[in-house]
C-alpha cells in the first residue's frame, strides 16, 4: 500500500534520469571525439610523415574501392537517365536528361554514394584493425616503443582518406555520366554527340569542385570514425564488433549531415 504514492515519483525520476544519462553520454562522446580529433589532425602536419604508410592506406582506401564504387556509379547513372526520362517525356523535355544526370552525379550522388560505400568498406576495416590492436595491447606496445600511436596509426590514415577520396569521386563522376549516356543512346534513342554536347554545356566548374570538396570531407569523416571507434574499443572480440558497427553507422550519418551543410554553403543564395 505504501508503495502506491511513490510510484509516479519513481516513474518521473526514472524518466528524468534516462534523459540525463543520454545527455551525459552525448556530452562525453562529443568531448572524447574532440579530444581525439585535435591531436589526430595536428599530427598530420608535423613530421615525420610515414609516407610509405600513407601510400599503402591510399591504395587500400582508393584503389581497392574502385570496383564497388565504380559499379555503384554506373548503375546510379543508368537509373537516373531511365527515371528522369519517364518524368521529362511528359513535358517534351527529354533534352534535360543529360543535365539531370551530370548535375546529380557531380554535385550529390557521386560523392555521397562513394562516401557511403567507402564507409562500409574501409571505415569498418579500419575500426576492426585498430580495435584488434587495442585489445591485444599492440597500441600500448607502440607507446612503450617510443612511437606515438596518433602519429603512426591515425595521421597516415586521415591523410590518405582526405587525399584519395577526391580522385576516386572524380572517376566516379565520369563513370556515372557514362552510365547515363549508355542508357540514353542505347535505350532511349539519343544521339551520342547531342547527349555529350548537352552534358558539357550544362556542367560548370563549381558543380564538380563542390563534389570534390565533399569527397575530401567524407574521406576525413570515414577515416576519423574508423580510427576513433577502433582506438577506443574495449572488451575483446565483442568490443571490436561494436566498434566496427559504430564506425560505419556514425560515418554514414555524419556524411549525410555534412553533405547538407556543404550543399548549403556552396549553393544556397
Amino acid at each position, binding site marked *: 500500500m505504501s508503495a502506491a504514492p511513490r510510484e509516479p515519483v519513481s516513474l518521473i525520476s526514472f524518466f528524468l534520469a534516462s534523459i540525463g544519462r543520454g545527455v551525459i553520454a552525448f556530452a562525453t562522446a562529443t568531448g572524447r571525439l574532440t579530444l581525439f580529433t585535435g591531436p589526430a589532425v595536428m599530427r598530420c602536419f608535423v613530421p615525420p610523415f610515414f609516407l610509405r604508410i600513407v601510400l599503402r592506406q591510399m591504395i587500400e582506401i582508393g584503389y581497392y574501392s574502385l570496383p564497388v564504387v565504380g559499379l555503384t556509379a554506373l548503375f546510379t547513372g543508368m537509373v537516373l537517365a531511365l527515371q528522369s526520362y519517364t518524368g521529362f517525356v511528359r513535358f517534351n523535355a527529354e533534352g534535360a536528361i543529360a543535365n539531370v544526370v551530370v548535375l546529380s552525379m557531380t554535385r550529390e550522388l557521386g560523392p555521397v554514394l562513394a562516401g557511403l560505400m567507402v564507409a562500409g568498406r574501409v571505415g569498418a576495416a579500419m575500426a576492426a584493425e585498430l580495435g584488434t590492436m587495442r585489445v591485444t*595491447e599492440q597500441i600500448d*606496445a607502440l607507446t612503450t616503443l617510443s612511437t606515438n600511436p596518433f602519429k603512426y596509426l591515425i595521421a597516415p590514415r586521415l591523410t590518405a582518406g582526405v587525399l584519395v577520396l577526391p580522385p576516386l569521386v572524380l572517376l566516379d563522376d565520369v563513370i556515372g555520366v557514362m552510365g547515363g549516356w549508355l542508357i540514353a543512346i542505347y535505350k532511349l534513342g539519343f544521339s551520342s554527340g547531342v547527349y555529350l554536347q548537352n552534358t558539357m554545356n550544362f556542367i560548370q566548374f563549381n558543380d564538380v569542385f563542390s563534389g570534390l570538396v565533399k569527397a575530401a570531407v567524407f574521406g576525413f569523416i570515414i577515416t576519423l570514425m574508423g580510427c576513433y571507434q577502433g582506438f577506443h574499443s574495449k572488451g575483446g572480440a565483442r568490443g571490436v564488433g561494436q566498434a566496427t558497427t559504430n564506425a560505419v553507422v556514425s560515418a554514414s550519418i555524419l556524411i549525410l549531415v555534412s553533405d547538407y551543410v556543404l550543399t548549403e554553403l556552396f549553393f544556397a543564395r
Partner: protein
Amino acid sequence: MSGPAPTAPKIRLRGVRKSFGAKPVLQGIDLDVPAGESTVVIGGSGSGKSVTIKCILGLIRADAGRIEVDGTDVTHAGGTQRDALLRRFGMLFQGSALFDSLPVWQNVAFGLIQGRGMKRDEARDIAIQKLAAVGLGPDVGELWPAELSGGMQKRVALARAIASNPEIIFFDEPTTGLDPIMADVINHLIKQCVRDLGATALSITHDMASVRKIADHVAMIYDGRIIWTGRASAIDSSGNPYVDQFVNGRAEGPIQMQIRNI
C-alpha cells in the same frame, strides 16, 4: 656525485591510487624497485598488478599518489618528457602484442627504427642479434608473427623488449599460457637478458615457479595494496598468512575468492 644514495630505489611508488568508475583498483600502492635487481610482484587475478605497471609507464594515468624514476617525479610526465622516459624502458606484454602487420625482424627493430630513427639496415642487424640472444635463428626474422607458436612469439616479444638495451624492463605475466618447459626457457632467458644488460627488472606474475626462478625481491599485492615485501629467499618463511596461502596455492585462507556458493 650528489645523486641518490646507493640504496635509493630505481622506481618508487607512494600512495598510488586508481579507480575505474566506482571500482577502486589501486588503493595506495607503496613499492620500491631496487636498481639492477629483479623485483617480482605477485598477486591474484584482478588485484591490480597490470594496472600498477601501466601507471608507471603512463599508459594509464594514476588518480593520486607519486611515481618516481631515479628520484624524479614522473607521475604526470607527458609529451617529450614521457618520450624520453619511455626510451629507457622495455616492456614484455602478456599477450606478446607483436604487430601482426610487420614481419618478425621489423617487430624487433621497431623501437630502433621508429623510436630512435636508426637506419633500417643497422636496425636489422641488431634485430638479428637480439633474436639470436633469445635462441631464434635469422630465418625467423622473415616470418610473420601469426606464423609463430605462442612460445616463439613470447621470445620475439622479449627480443623486442631488450632491442634498445633498456635500463628498466617490465615483464607482464611472462609465462602465462606457456607449457612448463617453455615457461622455464622464458624464465631462463629473462634472467639472462636482465643480467647481461645490467637492467632493473619488474615482473608481475602468479606463476610461483617463475617467481622462484627470476626474483631477487618479491612484493605481494592484495586488494589494491602491497601487503608484503621481502627477499625471494624469505618467501616460504614470510609469516604472512596471505603470502603463505598464495605461495602454497590453497583455496582456504584469508584470501577469499569471490565465488558464489551454490
